[in-house]
């Protein structure tokens, strides 16, 4: 069953001397999916994101995006093709307003669109409304809260009109209410904009809730992939990471919902 | 020939070390450094003329005065504005240079001065080279001071504190180190080194406020060659510059001296931005 994979990661590795931050990782992402990428701290999730988006040079392996080999391209080239990411520690354009930040994303980003300032501004305004930052768009980025900064970075990425987005631990630093709000926003945007999302996350509730499929990394290697249910019950995953309590919860829910 | 280069290199090494410390650890490019060195020279001159103190002793006085001057400059001017970034600190230190230069011009005039020591002519023999005594003494003292600073940095509580702050500012703060005090002492120390180097310079060369800019040019190169904040690196840098200048003079003529210095600097920057000896601190 080889449906069109928009992103193929083949045997991707990154070695820092003896340390294997990423070790022979391979997986595919289908168009329109939300793929969760999880694993304990240091598992290599952000490394993969960096490798794929060109921020880090690979030691080995290939990244194929829309049937083009992007393994050796620079970050800006990859971004222009439609593959982007957000950062674990937000990187706002300091000194500029929220609106300007998103405008830059709209001006640059994917190639082949109309990027004169008027059009780009219009596009930026729409995205700002979509994520709910309309009231704060004139504020300097130094004057807004962390959840808003994350929203802004998300909006900035959306303004680039990408096809695939790597969301790198977007939820870090948010409280549970904010996490819920963010999850709903991601799902809404995915549906409206027909995006493919690779969702790197640490907070179980968020990932399990919205991912179609989950890939688990540990010590730089891929250890399991499957549906949220499958992954939650996999002994290897439980052992490495999930902890017995959550796995038990899922099992109990299964027991309740299955008749007989 | 080579001996001469080495001896000059030693003095350069010391000069460069102070500048490198200030730049590497507090991130401040001290454009008034040259003025501080020359001020040290003038202090030495004054001590010699009025109190008959030998420059090799008044090095301590020069260093002490510059220590406090540096501290005052740091506390008064630089500390409040350091968040303005490199440009603001550059301009501030430049302004300080102008003021110091002007003071020296007014007090001592632009004429070149020297300190005439009674034992200036002595030299002794090593192998078949004649080594001038004063230059030799200068070299020894310069190296001794560098070593002393190294021991200070490694061995004392304050020294380690400074290193800690340089390596990881937040970490140092978290452990309870008074970060600002460390920066202050570091800058003052650098200034003291400048003053001391100035005293040594006075014993060998003639000096005038006009040298202020040239000295900054030299210590720039030395600091970059050696890696910012790296004392032994500065020592190496000083030696390299000393050798390059001396040999350059002989083979290519003195106009090329500067070009050589500049060329070395650019090559090192592009090839190894952290200096010849890498980013680590003391050795």
């Amino acid at each position: 069953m080889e449906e069109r994979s928009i992103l193929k990661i083949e045997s991707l590795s990154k070695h820092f001397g003896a340390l294997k931050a990423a070790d022979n990782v391979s997986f595919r992402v289908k168009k329109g999916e939300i793929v969760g990428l999880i694993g304990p701290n240091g598992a290599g999730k952000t490394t993969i994101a960096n490798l794929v988006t060109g921020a880090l040079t690979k030691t080995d392996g290939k990244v194929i995006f829309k049937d083009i080999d992007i393994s050796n391209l620079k970050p800006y080239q990859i971004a222009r093709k439609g593959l982007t990411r957000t950062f674990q520690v937000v990187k706002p354009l300091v000194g500029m307003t929220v609106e300007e930040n998103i405008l830059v994303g709209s001006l640059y980003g994917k190639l082949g669109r109309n990027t004169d300032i008027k059009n780009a501004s219009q596009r930026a305004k729409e995205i700002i409304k979509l994520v709910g930052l309309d009231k704060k768009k004139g504020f300097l980025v130094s004057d807004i809260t962390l959840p808003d900064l994350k929203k802004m970075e998300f909006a900035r990425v959306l303004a680039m009109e990408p096809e695939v987005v790597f969301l790198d631990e977007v939820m870090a630093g948010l409280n549970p209410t904010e996490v819920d709000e963010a999850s709903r926003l991601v799902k809404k945007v995915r549906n409206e904009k027909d995006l493919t999302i690779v969702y790197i996350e640490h907070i179980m509730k968020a990932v399990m809730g919205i991912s179609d499929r989950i890939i688990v990394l540990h010590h730089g290697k891929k250890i399991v992939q499957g549906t949220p249910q499958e992954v939650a019950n996999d002994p290897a995953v439980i052992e490495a990471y999930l902890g017995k309590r959550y796995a038990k919860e899922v099992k109990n829910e299964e027991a309740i919902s299955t008749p007989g | 020939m080579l001996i001469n280069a080495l001896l000059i290199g030693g003095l350069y090494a010391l000069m460069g070390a102070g500048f490198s410390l200030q730049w590497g650890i507090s991130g401040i490019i001290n454009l008034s450094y040259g003025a501080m060195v020359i001020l040290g020279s003038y202090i030495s001159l004054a001590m010699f003329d009025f109190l008959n103190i030998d420059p090799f002793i008044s090095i301590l006085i020069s260093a002490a005065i510059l220590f406090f001057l540096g501290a005052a400059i740091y506390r008064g001017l630089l500390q409040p504005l350091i968040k303005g970034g490199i440009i603001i600190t550059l301009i501030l230190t430049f302004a300080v240079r102008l003021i110091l230069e002007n003071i020296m011009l007014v007090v001592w005039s632009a004429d070149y001065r020297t300190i005439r020591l009674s034992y200036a002519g002595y030299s002794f023999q090593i192998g078949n080279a004649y080594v001038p005594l004063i230059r030799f003494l200068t070299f020894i003292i310069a190296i001794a001071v560098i070593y002393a600073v190294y021991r200070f940095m490694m061995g004392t509580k304050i020294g380690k504190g400074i290193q800690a702050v340089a390596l990881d500012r937040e970490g140092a703060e978290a452990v309870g180190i008074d970060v600002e005090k460390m920066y202050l002492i570091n800058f003052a120390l650098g200034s003291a080194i400048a003053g001391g180097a100035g005293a040594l310079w006075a014993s060998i060369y003639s000096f005038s406020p006009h040298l202020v800019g040239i000295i900054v040019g030299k210590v720039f190169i030395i600091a970059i060659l050696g890696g910012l904040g790296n004392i032994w690196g500065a020592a190496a840098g000083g030696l390299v510059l000393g050798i390059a200048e001396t040999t350059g003079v002989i083979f290519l003529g003195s106009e090329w001296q500067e070009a050589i210095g500049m060329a070395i600097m650019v090559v090192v920057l592009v090839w190894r931005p952290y200096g010849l000896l890498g980013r680590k601190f003391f050795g």
Partner: protein
Amino acid sequence: MVILIFLPKFIHGYGIRILTAIFMYAVIAQGINLMSGYMGYLPFGNAMFFGIGAYITAIMMGKGITFLLAMFLGGIVSILVSTLFGLPVLRLRGHYFAIATIGLSGALLSIVQNTTEITGGAMGTTLPIIDAPPKVTYSYFYWGMLVLMVVVTLVISYIMKTKFGYGVRSIKANEEAADSMGINTTQHKVLTWAISAFFTSLAGSIYAYWMSFIAPDEVFNVMIAVNAIVILLIGGMGTILGPIIGAFIIELLSEVTWSSFLEYHLAVMGIATIIIVFFMPKGVVGTFSEIRKSGEIKRRKKVTI
């Protein structure tokens, strides 16, 4: 405001000379403003383009080429040099880039000093003198610099409103983020420096023709850039009018202290600089625009809450 500048053709030679110098420094400051104030890369050695402009003009005119063409050639050479040097050197961060440019400038200085056959070496070289009464020639240079200043200001102002301008500002704001957004930062950096180099070079060309005599350590002097940076700081980095206002303030201050306090000239400049930096760290223009902006934001905040 601009109209005021057109009118004073009626002042005597001394005033015209000062104003011409002010315009010249404004141009140099704009060149650095573009690189540092907007893009965040401080080209301490930008004086090298001033020197290139001056020397190419001198050499070309010595071979019989007209001034305008020579000036233009100087500009082209500066663009080439900045691109050639820019590719390796613009990769360096902050302090290192600044220092590398000083190194390049110094190297260029030495080269010019030593290729005596072509450049006249350390003793300098002369340019043809215009056959006209001094008052007339001074006016020519006055207008020349004035036009240059207006042009460079308009060019920068225009660039900053374009997509490219946003890219440039993003580099200063957060270069890594800029990369990830699809901005070809290398291209932006090199191009920006080329523009900066071009205009600085033109200023050097006019200067050379104006003075009729140039020497290497005069036109390749790091102090030119330092002066320009002080002007920038005082006027306001990253503002369009900052360099112009700063040039006026600094040069006038300099003239006043030179004539009244010659002995303390340096110290007064130093103290004045410190005072302004302390009380107006964003420069004159910057501080005023800050006041305006925070007033606007306060109003907006009131409305939305």
